C-alpha cells in the first residue's frame, strides 16, 4: 500500500498497468488496492499541479490567518466547516501557535480576494481577526519546483 501511494503521490497519471509492472503485482491487485484506499478516504482526489503563471488565467493566492472563537460543542470544526464551504477556499488548517486557522484562498485578482475577506470571512460570528498575506511568487508547490529549469547537471563518464 505504502509503495503504491508513494507512486501515485509522485505521479497520479500512472496507469494501473504501469503501476502493476512497477510493483510486480497484478493489475487486478492494483485496482483493488486503489479502490480500498479511495473507499477508506486515504486517497481523496487526483489533481494536476498547475503553474497558473504559465497560463492566460489570472490567479492570485493569499494565505489568511484567522483568529476565531471556538463554539460550544463543535469547537473549531463548526467554523472550519463554514469556511471550507466557500469555493474560493483551497485549504483550511487548524494551527498551533499565534492564530487558529490558516485559510488558503485563490481568486482572479487582489480586489476579489480583498472583497472575499471583507464581505464573507471577516463578518462571520466567530472570527475575531484576519491577517491576509498575498503570495508574490511560487517557487515550489506539492514537491514540484516552479523555479529554474531543473537542468540535469550530471557529467558524462
Amino acid at each position, binding site marked *: 500500500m505504502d*509503495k503504491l501511494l508513494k*507512486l501515485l503521490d*509522485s*505521479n497520479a497519471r*500512472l496507469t494501473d498497468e*504501469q503501476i502493476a*509492472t*512497477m*510493483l*510486480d503485482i497484478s493489475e487486478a491487485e492494483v485496482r483493488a488496492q486503489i479502490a480500498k484506499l479511495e473507499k477508506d478516504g486515504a486517497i481523496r482526489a487526483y489533481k494536476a499541479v498547475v503553474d497558473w503563471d504559465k497560463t492566460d488565467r489570472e490567479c492570485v493566492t493569499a494565505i489568511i490567518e484567522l483568529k476565531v472563537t471556538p463554539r460550544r460543542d463543535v469547537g473549531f470544526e463548526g467554523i472550519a466547516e463554514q469556511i471550507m464551504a466557500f469555493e474560493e477556499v483551497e485549504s483550511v488548517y487548524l494551527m498551533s501557535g499565534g492564530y487558529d486557522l490558516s485559510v488558503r484562498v485563490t481568486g482572479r485578482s487582489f480586489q476579489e480576494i480583498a472583497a472575499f475577506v471583507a464581505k464573507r470571512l471577516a463578518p462571520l460570528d466567530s472570527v475575531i481577526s484576519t491577517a491576509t498575506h498575498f503570495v508574490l511568487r511560487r517557487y515550489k508547490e506539492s514537491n514540484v519546483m516552479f523555479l529554474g529549469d531543473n537542468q*540535469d547537471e*550530471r*557529467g*558524462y*563518464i
Partner: protein
Amino acid sequence: MNYEKLMNPTITGMKPSGIRRFFDIANDMEDVISLSIGEPDFSTPFHIRDKGVESLEKGKTWYTSNAGMPRLREAISGYIKRHVGITYAPDTEILVTVGGSEGIDLCMRTLVTAGDEVLIPQPSFVCYEPLAQMAGGVAVPIVTRAEDGFRLTAQALKAAITPKTKLLVLPFPSNPTGAVMRREHLEAIAEVLRGTDIFVLSDEIYADLTYGEASHVSLASLDGMWERTVYVSGFSKSFAMTGWRLGYVCAPAPLMKQMTKVHQYALMCAPTVSQYAAIEAMENGDDDVKEMREDYDSRRRFIVGELNKMGLRCFDPEGAFYVFPSIEKTGFTAEDFCTQLLMEQHVAVVPGTAFGECGEGFVRISYCYSIAHITEAMKRIRAFLESRGLL
C-alpha cells in the same frame, strides 16, 4: 615537437571511452532527453553531506593516513561484514581509494606484469581493458551472451584460461547489462579457479543495487576464493556519491601492502572531506540505500515493461541501474541506431559496442531518471520505431 611519435604508444593507441562521444553531440543539441548517464539522479543523502560540510567548517582539511582514516576503515569493515558476510581487517586489508576505479587500477598495476593475460568478461565497463594494457598486460575478452543472462559461465572461463592467465575480472552486478551472478553461478566459477594461481578482481560497486529476493553474493565468500580475491567497491552508486570520488579496495594483507605503495605514491590519500562523509554513510546509511534501491527497482520494472512492449527484447536485469535491450530486430548496428535516435528524436542512449565488440546489437539505457523523464523518452523511442515501420 612530434608529439605522436614521442608519446607512449600504449596510451596513444588507446581509444577514448565510447560512452563519452555521444554526449558531446548531445550537449550541442536542444531538447535532448538522455538515458545515458551512469550515475544516480539522487543527491547524496543530507545527513551524509552534512558530515562533509561539518568537517570543512571545523577546518579538517589535512591529509589522512595513506590507507584512509582508521575509523572509516573500521566502518567499511563493518559494512562489508554486515551486508556481504566477508571479513577484512581494517588495519591491514582495507584501503580507501579515489573512487572504485582507482582500486581497479591498483589491482592491475600490482598484479600484472608484461605479457600476463587478464580475462575480461564483456560487455563490461570501459576501464578494465585500458587499465590492464597500461599495466603491461594483455586483455583477453570473454564474450558473455544474452541467452546466459550475460553471466560468465564456467565453460567460457575454462576455455579462456592459459598458463599466462594472471587475473580474472568479475564485474557483477554488471554495467551495462544489469546481469548478476547468483550463488550457484559463482560456485561454478569457483570450481574452475580452485587449485589455480589465478587472482580475481571482483568489482562489486553495484552490489547494493541487487534486486529480487536473494541478496548479493560475493565470490570472496566462497571456499578458497577469499585469498585470491581483490574486492573493489565504493560509495558512488550505493550512496549517490559519485562526485565525492571515494571507493575502497580490500585484499589479503601481502597484496594490500604492495597496492598501498602504488596508492601512496600516485594519490597519497583519498579526499579527506569525502572520508568524513563516508563514515556517516557506512555507519548510518543503510536505510538510504534501501530506499533508493526500492525506487530504482520500480523504475527498472517500468522501463523493462515499456521496452518489451515495443518489441525491444530485454532480458531481466537484476542489478545496477541499466537495461540492455536487443535492437537486433531493427536491423541497425548499435552505432547507427543510437546516432539516428539522437538525430531524429533527440534521445541519447549508449551503443552496446562501447562496452566491447560483443555489445553489437544492443544499447545501454540507464534508468537513473524520473519516471516522467523515462516516459517521455519511451514515447520518442516508440515514435522512432514507428517511423521505421517497426511497430
